[in-house]
């Protein structure tokens, strides 16, 4: 039943890959050259995404999770496959923690965070029960709306007169070092490595065969979008503030001031972020539920929805004691952890090679 069209996959992937960077910024460590770092990450990111795509292409009819037991055998493949739902639910918890830290501190100071999260989780649960098809339609409907809002925002930022292109110059004055530092591994893992969860969506796409092109298109478009916003943020604030700001993109929206009439639009920025986080959490939890279903050979995936949502809720509520620690972990600890790197990069490469060799031998 859960069939989505190519157009819907494109919408989901673009929103998913832009995701929470819309507010946290991306590759801030590279300072004024961050936009360049984003573009380089994008190029490397497309290779990562194409590895995932080619794995599912080499194992037709199987979801990404099922490829492990098939190619690596029962004893090695199954435990490896089981790591994935755990990874997905952990990242979902991270995004819920984003909401936990951002919304109360910006637009709803007096409201208890758990209440905010419960509302968030209720809508996600409803979405999970309705299934991927409805979410595909939602993404398809929202993408043009988000595009229009973003275009209006850009016009407003430009007309506020806060942009100064000189802030972007000189290029590469501190050399390539700091660019590589953010590109590897953070730039590749963030957004692009996380596309791993999308791999569980691909089997639902009809007509088949268009997935690789769609994914490459969305990856490139998301990369260009992020690079553009990064460049805009740097030219608005200059390198130092951009690097230090917790939410650089949020600050960018805050900077809008046209004729003293349109001011303080920060709440809309948060809403933007909430929607992105909503879709991203949905995809992660969907991937979790789908993997659990495949790994336990259950017919009805719905029985996993409530437990998974509750775990993600508790994770998001308890994961980080404060915003600073939360962001520090996301940027400095998680990308370097061996589990992340191996599940998102090394093991997929091996899996791809094994699948490829087996296919070659078979034919």
């Amino acid at each position, binding site marked *: 039943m859960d*069939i*989505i*069209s190519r*157009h*819907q996959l494109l919408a989901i992937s673009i929103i998913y890959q832009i995701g929470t960077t819309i507010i946290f910024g991306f590759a801030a460590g590279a300072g004024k050259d961050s936009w360049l770092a984003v573009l380089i990450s994008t190029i490397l990111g497309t290779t990562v995404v194409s590895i995932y795509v080619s794995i599912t292409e080499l194992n037709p009819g199987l979801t990404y999770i099922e490829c492990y037991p098939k190619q690596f055998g029962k004893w090695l493949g199954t435990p490896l496959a089981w790591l994935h739902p755990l990874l997905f639910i952990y990242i979902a918890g991270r995004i819920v923690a984003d909401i936990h830290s951002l*919304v109360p501190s910006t*637009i*709803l100071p007096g*409201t208890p965070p758990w*209440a*905010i999260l419960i*509302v*968030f989780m*209720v*809508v996600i649960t*409803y*979405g999970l029960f*309705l*299934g991927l*098809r*409805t*979410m*595909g*339609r*939602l993404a*398809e*409907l929202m993408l043009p709306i988000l595009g229009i809002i973003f275009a209006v925002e850009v016009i407003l930022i430009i007309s506020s007169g806060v942009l100064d292109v000189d802030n972007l110059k000189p290029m590469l004055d501190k050399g390539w070092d700091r660019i590589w530092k953010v590109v590897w591994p953070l730039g590749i893992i963030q957004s692009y490595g996380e596309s791993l969860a999308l791999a569980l969506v691909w089997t639902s796409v*009809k007509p088949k065969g268009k997935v690789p092109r769609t994914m490459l298109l969305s990856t490139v478009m998301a990369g260009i979008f992020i690079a553009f916003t990064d460049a805009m943020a740097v030219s608005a604030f200059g390198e130092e503030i951009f690097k230090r700001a917790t939410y650089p993109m949020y600050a960018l929206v805050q900077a809008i001031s046209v004729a*003293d*009439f*349109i*001011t*303080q*639009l*920060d*709440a*809309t920025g*948060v*809403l933007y972020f*909430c*929607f992105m986080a*909503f879709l991203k959490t949905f995809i992660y939890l969907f991937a979790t539920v789908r993997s659990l279903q495949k790994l336990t050979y259950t017919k009805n995936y719905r029985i996993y929805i409530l437990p998974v949502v509750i775990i993600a809720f508790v994770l998001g509520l308890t994961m980080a004691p404060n915003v600073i620690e939360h962001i520090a972990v996301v940027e400095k600890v998680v990308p370097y952890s061996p589990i992340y790197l191996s599940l998102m990069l090394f093991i997929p490469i091996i899996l791809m090679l094994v699948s490829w060799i087996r296919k070659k031998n078979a034919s």
Partner: protein
Amino acid sequence: MAPNQQPDNVAGMLNENLNENLKQFQAVFKNCADIHYRQFELKTGQQGVLIYLSGMVDTDAIDLDMTRQLIESCMTENSTSAEDSARLTENLQHTIQSKLGFTSQVNWNDDFYSSVEQILSGDYALLLDGMAQVLTINAKGLETRAIEEPATEAVIRGPRDGFQESISTNMSLIRRRLMTAQLKMEMVTIGRLTKTEIAITYLEGNAGEDLIAEVKKRIGRIQIDAILESCNIEELIEDNSLSPFPQVMVTERPDKVVGNLLEGRVGIIIDNTPFVIVVPGTFFQMLQSPEDYYQRYIIASAIRLLRLLSVVSSLLLPSLYIALTTYHHEMIPTMLLISIASSRETVPFPAVVEALVMEVAFEGLREAGVRLPRPVGQAVSIVGALVIGQAAVAAGIVSSPLVIVISMTGIASFLFPSFQLGLAFRLLRFPMMIAAATFGLYGILMLLLFMLLHMLSLQSFGTPYMTPLAPFSRGAIKDVITRANRRLMLKQGPHPSKDRS
């Protein structure tokens, strides 16, 4: 008629004795003041009776004297023998059919209960002594009102005829716009007591086979005593009965029905109501007025954009006001904030209470205006305008910006071409206000997402509710948010698109 409702003295069989037959009819139609028995005698001395319901038949169509002469002309001199009687039945039917012209349908009924049903549906029944059969002559002559402009869907430019209560008139209003044999109208009778006639109408070739089959299947499985209005049918055939959104389109306008038939939809005409159902109903179809196609396309596009804006504001305006004044003051420009704050100074309630009270009062006022007789209705609107508009502000119960917001919301909600869809949005406004009061803009976003998810998951007869926007359909998109020029739309294929995710 169900067996348990048969009077005891009715055998349910016709025999050759006129008096016995008549007694049976009289027993069935006991205490029915509108049944008429007209007895007559032929010049041979043979007795006969005409039975009909007054008001249901056209009394000009059949004249008693004429009928008598007709029968007599078919008889030979001494017609008491059995062979003559058999020949008479043959002749009679033939003669009546040819003499009364093509308007009347003439039938011989052997069965008592089927002739009772024929009488109930507006036929004359003719009984003759010595015949174990009943001749029924169709001469339906129901009282109808004239064709008038539809009250709920007026247009500036466009045809002014609207459906009325008689199904045959309604069918003709459609037929005369589509003079093609492709236009099919299949009759079904539903309702154990009301025996309501229902016509399923579609354009063969334009409407999908499976859609037609699905409509017939859903209508066929209806088991009900009475159908009084199209809503009875609507509730029995719609996909999701828990949704506040209407999933079939209801209209009083023949041109709207024809337009939808051309797009491949199926119409359901129901006797005794001017409202015709069109399925599948989609959201954007219900946001279209036939006038969009009768005005120049640039103007029509602008009106559609205005309508879309009003849809959004009828849902969100009060809740945005609540959210902004309660949680996000900083988003309001300073000067405006000052003026809002100064007018709210004397108001003792939080914004949400103020807005809820005003909204309820407004909805009550509107409902009162619908129900009350015209002259009183005006008095209500004056009282409403004075009390709600002026006195409430002067007394410091509500603030004047809120009155503006409520009245703008009211105006916006009048722009819905489909009253049913407008009702859904009127209802959803209230949870939206509560969400805004508890979680501000975040609450509005979350409830909006919830609502959108629901709307996107709805299906009406296999067609997604939000098509062609989501799922996206490139061909049909020209006629959704705006309207493209006719020349661009000529190539548009049959819509609604099926089998899309």
